[in-house]
């Protein structure tokens, strides 16, 4: 069964607006990562936040993590048409040398020009 559940499943906004996507997970984690997938392409790593961190920024991206609620949010500020893609959260459950990622279903973001 999936670890992460993103909401909303689909989001449509106008260029320049902010987009917020949420992710909830079930088990204890080492870290949480956000990835983007443009149509027909591979997954691109956006940002990683460790379990002892609460907030992280990277350019127009802001990620928060609340381990007590087992949830994370990804905020994209001043969105652009090029941000149109599917966004996935993935939790890293580190056990020894194991490094697998457990994924949510993703949020499909459409940024309209």
């Amino acid at each position: 069964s999936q670890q992460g559940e993103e909401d909303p499943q689909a989001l449509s906004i106008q260029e320049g607006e902010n987009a917020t996507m949420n992710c909830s997970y079930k088990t204890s984690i080492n870290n949480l990562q956000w990835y983007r997938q443009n149509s027909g392409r591979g997954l691109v790593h956006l940002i990683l936040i460790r379990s002892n961190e609460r907030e992280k920024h990277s350019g127009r991206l802001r990620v928060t993590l609340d381990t007590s609620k087992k949830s994370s949010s990804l905020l994209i500020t001043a969105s652009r048409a090029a941000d149109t893609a599917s966004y996935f959260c993935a939790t890293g459950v580190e056990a020894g040398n194991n490094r697998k990622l457990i994924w949510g279903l993703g949020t499909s973001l459409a940024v309209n020009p």
Partner: protein
Amino acid sequence: EAGVTQFPSHSVIEKGQTVTLRCDPISGHDNLYWYRRVMGKEIKFLLHFVKESKQDESGMPNNRFLAERTGGTYSTLKVQPAELEDSGVYFCASSPRTGSYNEQFFGPGTRLTVL
């Protein structure tokens, strides 16, 4: 630096046939992962190699799937015989071997359709 590459990009086969997917990780990356996304469902972990050794193969669906990474470079994932439910996008990822967790670099995926 070249990214993770996968071959083929698309494969259409009939039920009962065999298909072999290939992944070339980023040069020097010891960790190699296979994931699969079936339509409408989440991306699921299949297995993880460290160099040529299988570190974790807990996600392999059944014994029709065989993954290899001879020599610790590229990897192949063979499905034999393929079933309808094997259709989906197969992603490969790699990461360097460091002491702490790190991001995984993904290939574009192979879209497998079993008819």
